[in-house]
C-alpha cells in the first residue's frame, strides 16, 4: 500500500471507485425495484395484487421487464431527427445518475487505517485531518437536474410527432418553472446552515433525537421543495408531459425498446435522487441513533429515509388526479414562488434577531 499517485495513497483511488460502484449499483437496483415496488404498493392500495407470476410474488418482474425491453425492436421514425432522437434518452438518463455523486449516504468509516467518508465526491485529507467534499454540492444538484430537461425537450422535438412535441413543451415549461420554486425554497435551508456543502448540512442536523432536522425548522420549505420536486420529475399529480389520457405517452410516444427503458429509468432515478436530496436537506441525511458510533448504521438510516419518501411518492400517485397545464403553471408561479420568497424573508428576519 505504499504506492502513491499524485501525492495520494492508492487506497483513496480504490475507495473512490468502490464508492462509485456501490452508489451506482444502489441507484440502479433501486430503480429496478422501485418499478416493482410501485406496482405492488399501488396494486395493494387498489385491492389487487400487482405482479405475481414472475418469481416469488413477482420479484423477478423488473428483470423480466428489462430483458423484454432490451430485445424489443428499435423503431426510429423515418421523419425523426436521428441523432437527436438517439442522444435524447442518454441526455435524460446521465444527469439523473450523476446527481448522486454529492449526496452523503453515511458517516466516515475506517479501512486499513484510512478514513473514508461515505460520499462519492469526498475524501479525507490526512494532513488537514478533515473531510473535504464538493463545497457547492447543492448548486451541482440544481445544475444537473436542469440538464435532464434537455433530454426530454430533445426527445419531444426530434420525434417529429405532435403528441411528443406537446409533451416536450409541457415538460420544459413545467421543469423550468418548478426548478425555480424548488431552488428558492431550499435557500432558506442554506441561510440556516451557512454552507452549500451537503456533508456539512447533514452534520448540522445531527443533534439529539432528530429535533435538529431542518424539516422542523423549515416545514414550509420542506413541503414546498418536495412538491416542487414532484413537479420537476413529472410525478403524479404533475405528470402532464406523459399524461397518458391526453398525450398518449407524451415525449416518449415514439420511443421503443431500450431507449424507452432509459426514459423510464431516468424518471425513477430522478425520483430516488429527489427523495435522497429531501432526506439529506430536511430529514437529517444518514443521521440516526448511534449512527456516529456505529458507522454502518448511517447508510441504513439514509436508505430507510429515502425509501420512506419514495413510498410517499407512490402513495400520492394512487390518491390524486392530475393537474391541468395552466393550473400547474398557476400553482408554480403564483403560489410556490411567492411563498418561497416570503419564507426566505421571514427566515432572514428571524435569523437576524436570534
Amino acid at each position: 500500500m505504499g504506492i502513491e499517485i499524485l501525492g495520494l495513497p492508492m487506497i483513496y483511488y480504490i475507495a473512490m471507485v468502490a464508492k462509485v460502484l456501490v452508489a451506482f449499483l444502489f441507484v440502479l437496483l433501486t430503480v429496478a425495484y422501485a418499478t416493482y415496488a410501485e406496482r405492488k404498493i399501488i396494486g395493494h392500495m387498489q385491492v389487487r395484487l400487482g405482479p405475481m407470476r414472475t418469481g416469488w410474488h413477482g420479484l423477478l418482474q423488473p428483470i423480466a421487464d428489462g430483458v423484454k425491453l432490451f430485445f424489443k425492436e428499435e423503431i426510429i421514425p423515418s421523419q425523426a431527427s436521428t441523432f437527436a432522437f438517439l442522444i435524447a434518452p442518454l441526455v435524460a438518463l446521465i444527469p439523473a445518475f450523476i446527481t448522486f455523486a454529492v449526496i452523503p449516504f453515511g458517516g466516515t468509516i475506517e479501512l486499513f487505517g484510512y478514513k473514508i467518508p461515505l460520499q462519492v465526491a469526498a475524501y479525507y485529507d490526512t494532513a488537514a485531518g478533515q473531510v473535504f467534499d464538493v463545497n457547492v454540492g447543492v448548486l451541482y444538484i440544481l445544475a444537473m437536474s436542469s440538464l435532464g430537461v434537455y433530454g426530454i425537450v430533445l426527445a419531444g422535438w426530434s420525434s417529429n410527432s405532435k403528441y411528443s412535441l406537446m409533451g416536450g413543451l409541457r415538460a420544459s415549461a413545467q421543469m423550468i418553472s418548478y426548478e425555480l420554486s424548488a431552488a428558492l425554497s431550499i435557500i432558506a435551508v442554506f441561510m440556516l446552515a451557512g454552507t452549500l456543502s451537503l456533508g456539512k448540512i447533514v452534520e448540522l442536523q445531527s443533534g439529539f433525537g432528530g429535533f435538529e432536522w431542518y424539516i422542523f425548522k423549515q416545514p414550509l420549505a420542506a413541503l414546498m421543495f418536495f412538491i416542487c420536486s414532484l413537479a420537476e420529475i413529472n410525478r403524479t399529480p404533475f405528470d402532464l408531459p406523459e399524461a397518458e389520457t391526453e398525450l398518449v405517452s407524451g415525449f416518449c410516444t415514439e420511443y421503443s425498446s431500450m431507449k424507452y427503458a432509459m426514459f423510464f429509468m431516468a424518471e425513477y432515478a430522478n425520483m430516488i435522487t429527489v427523495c435522497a436530496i429531501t432526506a439529506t436537506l430536511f430529514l437529517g441525511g444518514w443521521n440516526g441513533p448511534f449512527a456516529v458510533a456505529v458507522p454502518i448504521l448511517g447508510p441504513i438510516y439514509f436508505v430507510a429515509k429515502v425509501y420512506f419518501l419514495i413510498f410517499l411518492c407512490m402513495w400520492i400517485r394512487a390518491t390524486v388526479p392530475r393537474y391541468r397545464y395552466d393550473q400547474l403553471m398557476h400553482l408554480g408561479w403564483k403560489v410556490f414562488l411567492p411563498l418561497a420568497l416570503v419564507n426566505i424573508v421571514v427566515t432572514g428576519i428571524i435569523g437576524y434577531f436570534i
Partner: protein
Amino acid sequence: MATTETMTLNMGPQHPSTHGVLRLVLELDGEIITKVTPHIGYLHRGVEKLSEHRTYHQILPLTDRLDYLAPMHNNLGYILAVEKLMDVQVPERAETIRIIMAELTRLQSHLVWVACHALDIGAMTVFIYAFRERETVMELYELISGARMTSNFFRVGGLSQDVPDEFVKRVSDFIDVMPGYLDQYEGLLTTNPIWLKRTVGNGVISAEDAIDFGLTGPALRGSGVDWDLRRDNPYGGYEKYQFKVPVGVECDTFDRYKVRLVEMREACKIIRQALDRLKPGPVLADNPQVCYPPKENVYNSIEGLIHHFKIASEGFPAPEGEVYQGVENPKGELGFYIVSDGGNKPQRLRIRPPSFVNLQAIEQMSLGSMIADLVAVIGTLDIVLGEIDR
C-alpha cells in the same frame, strides 16, 4: 415578424381516452382548442339495416351490442317497443325483474363511467375500485343469463327464464354495500381539490343549449333540466316506484358527476323497492302467437317443440303501423322506432342512440379550453361508440 398558425392534431381513433374508436380532429392554438371535428363510423355494423332482415325475436341480440355497457337496458327499450306494437301484457314478476335488471344496468354503466372519467382526469384508484363493484353486477348478469355482457335475457312478453333462487339474496347483498362503495369514490373525488379544479367550470352548457342540442340523460339533467323519462313518461312499470331525479345547477362537469352519483344511489333504492314487490309467478305472458313456449314444453311435448320451431324460424307477423318507445338509458334517451308493414320483420327500425346525439355538444362544450378539458368533456358526456356508430 413571427406568425402564428394553428396545429391540427388527430386524436384517435386509437387513443387512450376517446372511449373506443372515436376520432377527433382538433385545431389547436398552443394547447387551446379552436375547433373540434368528430369523425365517427369506425364501429359501424349496420344494426338498423340488419334488423330489416330479421324477425322481431332475432333483432334482440343486436341490441345488446349497441351500448355494450348497458345491454339489458337496450333490450328493455326494444322489447317494450315490440310489446307496444303487438299489444302484449307482461306478467308482474317479469316486469319487476326487468326493473331490477335495468337499474343494475344503470349502476354498472355509471360505474364504468365514474371509473373511466376518473382515469381520464388522472385518478387511477377510483378506476379499479369501480371496476371491482362492476364485477359483482357482471356476476349477477352471468347468474341469470349466462353471459356477462351480451345478456339477451328479456323476451317479447317477459323473460327468457325465471331467475335462480339465490338471485334475490345476491342482489340484496349488493345494494346493501353499494352506497358504502359510493362513499369511497366520493371520498377520493368529491372534496379533492385537484378534482374540483378539473371539473368545476369545465364543459359548461346552458339549459337552453342542452335542449337545442337534444341532450338527454345526465348530460341534460346536469344543466338543470328536470327531465327523466322514467318519471315523466313512465314505461315498463316505473310509475310504481318512488325515486328522486337529481338535477345540476352550474351546468358543468362537476354537476354532471354529482347527478350520476345520486342516480346510482337512487338506483339502489329502486332495486330495493322492486325486491320488496317481487312475488312468485309466471315470467312470460300467456300469448302463444308471440311468445316462446316454456322450455319444459319444448323438451317434453311435440306440440311445444313445433310451437318453439314456428316462433324461432318465422317469428310472428306484426300488425301494420308505427311505434316509438323511448327509455331512459344510463346515457340518455334510447328510442326505438319501428315501422311494420304487416310482415314478420320490421320494414324499418330506427334507433335513437343517446350518445350519438350527446356527442354533438362536444365542440360547444370544449371550445376555448385545453386538451385536458376536452378529455374531461369526453368523459362527462359518457359516450359509447357501439351505439354512436350502430
